[in-house]
């Protein structure tokens, strides 16, 4: 039983990690290429979830919702980039923080305006309902496994996109020398909009996928955003590989901490108190991990090779 529970929690951690990777990949790409810190990334996640929930409610199909979430988040990302973000690339980080903070306020209140304060619900598609049996005898939700699968697929696709395609080459060139690729005739404005929309679509995808597990509500993006920050700080800002490793570390540490720490303290003290201390410590665990990583490597585990 204990092994089965352990495996189950491990998979939960992996699923959280994959989710965080989808968020962190966009953030780190946007920072790596444009040098922009985007607090509104969590809002794009929320946009994806709301688009998925409302499209799924209208058409009755989760898959239509998923497509809608990608389209809506990418479109929202592109519009925001063209209207606001574009003016921020040359500004300092303080201005970027403030402008994107303002965007969060606008997105959150705007969404509340459109959809009301009540959460929406999204059903798991029939194809992915049900469970799979795990070694050790317990059963695991198929949908969560599917999320892990999607995350791995996106990671591979992203790797191929960046390493093998022309767009990827331009993205990498943009990371190492903006002026030069502009001088070589690459339309850098369109490239930036594309990268931003790509990051937004990934965030929207994450929001839609998680929407079926939790309720879809205003403010759902912020906790994920902050975890994604922890991920890219651990992984090294600007590095996709770092985002992947960091996401898995954070996802697994957080889930396993909540599972194991109360039990660990249970060996030392009475159960009620162990639950309290273990729970409180578990809620801080990833931040402690982050502090330790930074103490050893201030630039994160995989510092992006930049001049």
């Amino acid at each position: 039983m204990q092994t089965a529970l352990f495996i189950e929690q491990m998979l939960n951690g992996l699923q959280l990690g994959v989710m965080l990777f989808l968020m962190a990949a966009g953030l780190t790409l946007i920072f790596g290429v444009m040098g922009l810190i985007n607090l509104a990334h969590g809002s794009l996640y929320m946009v994806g979830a709301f688009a998925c929930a409302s499209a799924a409610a209208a058409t009755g199909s989760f898959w239509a919702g998923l497509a809608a979430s990608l389209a809506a988040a990418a479109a929202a990302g592109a519009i925001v980039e063209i209207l606001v973000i574009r003016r921020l690339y040359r500004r300092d980080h303080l201005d970027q923080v403030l402008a994107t903070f303002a965007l969060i306020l606008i997105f959150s209140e705007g969404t509340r305006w459109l959809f009301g304060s009540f959460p929406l619900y999204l059903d798991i598609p029939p194809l992915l309902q049900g469970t799979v049996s795990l070694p050790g005898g317990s059963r695991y939700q198929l949908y969560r496994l599917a999320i892990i699968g999607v995350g791995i697929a996106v990671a591979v696709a992203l790797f191929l996109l960046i390493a093998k395609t022309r767009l990827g080459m331009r993205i990498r060139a943009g990371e190492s020398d903006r002026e030069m690729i502009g001088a070589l005739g690459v339309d850098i404005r369109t490239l930036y909009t594309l990268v931003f929309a790509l990051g937004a679509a990934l965030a929207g995808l994450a929001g839609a996928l998680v929407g079926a597990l939790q309720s879809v509500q205003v403010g759902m993006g912020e906790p994920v955003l902050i975890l994604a920050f922890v991920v890219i700080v651990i992984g090294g800002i600007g590095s996709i590989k770092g985002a992947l490793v960091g996401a898995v570390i954070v996802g697994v540490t957080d889930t396993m901490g909540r599972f194991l720490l109360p039990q660990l303290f249970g060996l030392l003290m009475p159960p009620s108190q162990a639950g309290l201390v273990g729970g409180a410590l578990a809620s801080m665990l990833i931040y402690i991990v982050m502090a330790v990583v930074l103490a050893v490597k201030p630039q994160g585990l995989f510092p992006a090779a930049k001049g």
Partner: protein
Amino acid sequence: MTISRETAVGIGLVLILLAIPYAAIELGKPFYVTLATRMAILALAAVGLNLALGLGGLVSFGHAAFFGIGGYAAGILASHGFSGQPLDFGLFSLPGTTMMPAIWVVAVAAGGLLAAVIGAISLRTSGVYFIMITLAFAQMTYYFAISWPAYGGEDGLSITLRNAFPGVNTLVPINFFLICYGLLAAALVLFALTRDSRFGAALQAARQNEVRVATVGIAPYRIRLAAFVISGMVTALAGALYADLNRFVSPSMLSWHMSGELIVLIILGGVGRLAGPVAGAMLFVLFEFLLGGLTERWQFFLGLALLGVVLFARGGLVGLLVGRPRHG
């Protein structure tokens, strides 16, 4: 001695803030005294942040942690003072108290200690890393407050009766306002003295050119850490007052939204300006009150206004009134 325009504007703003509650009482609208108190407390918190952000260029997105720890210091001490049970630290125990000066000392010490720990780690990095790490640490205290049920957890902690100040009846709103205002004035003096001191010069120089400061033999890290700790202390003091104003402490004081608001106050007022936080807090509270009265969606318009200020009107209110700083 001639007074610079910035100083004149600053003195003017501070005097206006003092006049608001008296005018409110004259006009028979005592509710506005509370509004003015809120302005003074938020301004105090922002003066703290302005030390780190304005002078030191340290964009801390985690000052809610200090604001909240000050609030919790007040709430926890008051609840123990009220119930008569000492705070138990295992090895030793402390009596609770409902005396403001004692609470302030504890709040400031707690804020300083937390700022020392967070700063020591965060200041190893800079730029975006610093922003994200301070945010993450504040979030850590937030989740800790939520998951620790002894002092209310997610529900927060009420303060039964506003804490006392020797010789003053703090239950009278204007008296409490004057206490807050006095502390704000003291903090503004501290800010001005710091800015013009050798320490402040080194801090501002480290913002403008870190390498040069290091070359002349000053370690930027230590200067910044000291500024960060002082900054955390001032903001924690404001947190203790805020708890007394609302007679309530909750994890929302620690939330990242609070950190964002503190930065917004400074930007609205003017970064690094002495009176920037005062102007920003007055503007913000007024905005919140007026728009909040008109529409439930006031945050939407706050977002638009903020976006406009960031994109088109840099320098904030003080910048608008005084003009650009001569160097920056």
